[in-house]
């Protein structure tokens, strides 16, 4: 892949530029600025792994920076251990801390996660104070300066910091282009859709958190040796560390490895120059500049400079007009075999009940789904159809009852585990990953079956071709029509190679032509050997499509049977049309 080598070449170019600057710069002070740029870029990149790619904004990431600093220095002081080894120990401690912090904290979503992360560095600060480590100086080792990371030559610190940056860039690049990277971005964009597509969000976030703790610890260890020489709780666990991290990442742009790099290259020299020129008269000028930078970027370009510039370049390049989009027509009907359902029971639902506060959404619902059938679930609004799907794919745990898939009990399994077993689903309101291309959206599904990016890409392309959407692969979901969005979601679901798909109102919002296309596509899915359960509240469309119908009303199963038979059922007519209609029908 050309783009693949281009990414690595760009990283090589950055490192080469860094090397060039390191050897071009003469003054000690300039070396210091260079070291700081490299280190803060690396720290921003570390934060970016969990907060940029995975979107879990951590306001306490300095906890790992501080652990790196304290562990390394304490090992020198207490055990005479070289920081080169101490750093490795520190990384181990930081990753362990990430696990211990992550296990409880990832149960929290959104703002609660961010608030909880605030508490950890504060606790470390208090504990370090209490343990008597208010100030730990690195002991001078004149005999073996290099062995104890105490270089006389400032250039050596530049090179060390550049090495840390290069390694963090490489790590970020590997994550960005791997399955984990796609999954993290999917979690950021829509966690529930990601779960339904087989992404175990807890494990992915945990992996990202551990991977982001490691470089942060290394940066902390190097920062102490290159810049501070004395560790204090305030200096390594304090608010200024996370502020600086947020500044470089957010000004540059989160969610890409170029963001923190750009942010550090811009912001660190500015604040250093201000600090040396007016810092003694105006102590705090750095804080003001960082604070102002955060405010300005949130007001004028909240996505960060990298994304803003990229968007501007793209829209200029793309002004030539969009490629002609082919009209999607219904595929030929030859595959639409009348009914191919077998007698094998794929899914058993037994006595499922689910209540929300004051509302019995499902009560004692039982039915079977047979392999390769198209089963329609109908019912008026509020009948419990979507709740039923949420139970079937693991978003909700029923209060009572059991669901068996292929004979195995699956009640209470997470959606990602159900997806792995072969249950796919789409949503009533299409859930896309808006900042991923159509192809990447579908790839997230394909990763449920194959970890290799190239093979997942091929599988995703094949799934798109199956729904006649191949020519939209590089578009973003925001530019798609409703029909195309529904088809993309179907393709994403098919890419997980399901045995059973749950389609939640796939016809909603479609034109008459769109409905024809969708119905043909669903028939084609079934012809490919996949069992389909479909929710609709428009009876008309389902009568054309389904082999059997189940009618839900107020959480109960009202009727079940062949479409013709169900529509004659007085109970169904009453639920849909009311008692008066039934009376009129009887009088006829």
């Amino acid at each position, binding site marked *: 892949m050309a783009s693949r080598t281009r990414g690595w070449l760009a990283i090589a170019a950055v490192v080469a530029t860094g090397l060039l600057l390191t050897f071009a710069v003469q003054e000690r002070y300039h070396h210091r600025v260079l070291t700081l740029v490299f280190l803060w870029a690396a720290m921003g990149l570390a934060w970016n792994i969990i907060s940029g790619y995975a*979107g879990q904004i951590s306001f306490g990431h300095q906890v790992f920076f501080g652990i790196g600093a304290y562990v390394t220095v304490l090992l020198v002081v207490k055990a005479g251990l070289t920081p080169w080894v101490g750093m490795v120990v520190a990384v181990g401690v930081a990753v362990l801390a990430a696990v211990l912090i992550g296990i409880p904290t990832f149960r929290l979503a959104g703002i*609660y996660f961010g608030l909880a992360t605030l508490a950890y560095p504060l606790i470390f600060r208090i504990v370090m104070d209490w343990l008597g480590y208010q100030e730990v100086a690195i002991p001078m080792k004149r005999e073996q300066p290099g062995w104890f990371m105490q270089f006389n030559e400032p250039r050596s610190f530049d090179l060390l910091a550049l090495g840390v940056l290069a390694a963090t860039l490489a790590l970020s690049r590997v994550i960005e282009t791997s399955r984990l990277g796609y999954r993290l971005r999917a979690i950021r964009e829509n966690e529930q859709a990601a779960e339904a597509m087989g992404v175990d969000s807890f494990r992915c976030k945990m992996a990202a958190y551990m991977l982001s703790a490691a470089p942060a610890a290394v940066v902390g260890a190097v920062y102490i040796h290159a810049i501070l020489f004395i560790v204090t709780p305030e200096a390594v666990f304090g608010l200024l560390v996370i502020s600086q991290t947020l500044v470089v990442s957010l000004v540059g742009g989160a969610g890409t490895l170029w963001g923190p790099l750009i942010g550090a290259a811009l912001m660190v020299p500015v604040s250093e120059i201000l600090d040396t020129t007016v810092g003694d008269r105006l102590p705090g000028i750095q804080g003001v500049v960082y604070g102002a930078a955060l405010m300005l970027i949130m007001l004028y370009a909240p996505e960060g400079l990298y994304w803003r510039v990229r968007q501007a370049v793209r829209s200029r390049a793309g002004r030539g007009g969009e490629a002609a989009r082919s009209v999607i027509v219904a595929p030929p009907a030859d595959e639409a075999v009348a009914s191919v359902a077998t007698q094998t029971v794929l899914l058993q639902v037994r006595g499922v009940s689910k209540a929300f506060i004051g509302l019995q959404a499902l009560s004692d619902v039982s039915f079977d789904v047979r392999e390769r059938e198209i089963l329609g679930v109908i019912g008026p609004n509020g009948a419990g159809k979507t709740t039923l799907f949420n139970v079937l794919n693991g978003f909700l745990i029923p209060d009572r009852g059991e669901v068996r898939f292929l004979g195995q009990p699956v009640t209470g399994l997470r959606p990602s585990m159900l997806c792995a077993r072969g249950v796919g689903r789409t949503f009533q309101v299409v859930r896309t990953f808006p900042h991923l291309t159509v192809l990447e959206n579908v790839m997230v599904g394909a990763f449920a079956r194959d970890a290799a990016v190239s093979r997942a890409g091929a599988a995703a392309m094949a799934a798109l071709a199956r729904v006649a959407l191949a020519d939209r692969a590089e578009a973003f979901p925001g530019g798609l029509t409703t029909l195309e969005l529904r088809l993309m979601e179907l393709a994403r679901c098919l890419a997980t190679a399901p045995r059973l798909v749950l389609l939640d109102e796939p016809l909603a919002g479609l034109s008459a032509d769109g409905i024809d296309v969708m119905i043909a596509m669903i028939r084609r899915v079934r012809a490919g050997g996949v069992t389909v359960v479909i929710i609709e509240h428009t009876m008309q469309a389902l009568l054309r499509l389904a082999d059997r119908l189940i009618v839900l009303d107020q959480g109960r199963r009202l009727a079940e049977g062949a479409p013709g038979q169900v529509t004659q059922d007085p109970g169904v007519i009453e639920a849909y049309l009311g008692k008066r209609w039934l009376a009129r029908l009887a009088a006829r």
Partner: protein
Amino acid sequence: MALAELVQYVATGLLVGGVYALMSIGLALIFGVMRVVNFAQGDFMMLGMYLTYFYAISGSIDPLLGALLTIPPFFVLGWIVHRGLLARVTGGGDPQRQMDAQLVLTLGLSLVITNATTMILTPTPLGIRTGYATQAFALGPVLLNQARSYAFAMALVLAAAVYVFLTRTDLGKALRASADDPEAASYQGIDVRAMHGLAFGIGIALVAAAGGLLATYYPIEPTVAGNFIVLMFVAVVLGGLGSIPGAFVGGLVIGLVQSLTLLVLPFQLQNTGVFIVFLLVLYLRPQGLFGRRARTV
């Protein structure tokens, strides 16, 4: 341990907690109405402390009165900050990202205020001398510091006033309506943006007043916000994000936990008790003591 000693710790904790409660309801009001986690809340408290100090120094106004006099200017300041900054990142887009953006914005604001104050007013701590700061009421064997007792009483009065405003006046009801459902509120002719400005103004005014009350017994310095913003977050989460009675109780609980921690842990570890309670609440009951969990699929 003597019972009197325990009562003493509880009383001290509650007195301090009253002021925490007042600052926390400001934060809760802002979150409840605007869904904004205001990181700069502690900095407005710090500015309130300084204003009370200047009232006391230049006009020899008693800090208890000075605290009340911070309310009008800080209400206006809050309104301006909302119009000029927060309202510009409100509206449209993914709510989660917008919340993150606003939080980062207020974090930036907090950095600017803290550091600009350090630049202009120097980091030297200041204090307001009052006759009652070193006096105590004696209730049997239990001693209640007078400054803290007055501050506690004023905090209760202000919190009660906010409660009456929110539940008994049309404006307060409109405010609560726009917190519950901004869209439905706007269909009823409520100017939701104005309500946000009002909420932010009141929230800032309350925390400034709490700062003024705190100034009767706590040193005033530019970095004081850092010690309190986290306590406010804890109180608000404890009470259930956005719940005003919850935040009030949360503030009292924080004061109690801080005080009672001293019974078992050394002074430096006073706040670990608070953070442990914070994390426990987040893990066990993230909706807080008074909040209700809402989740949609």
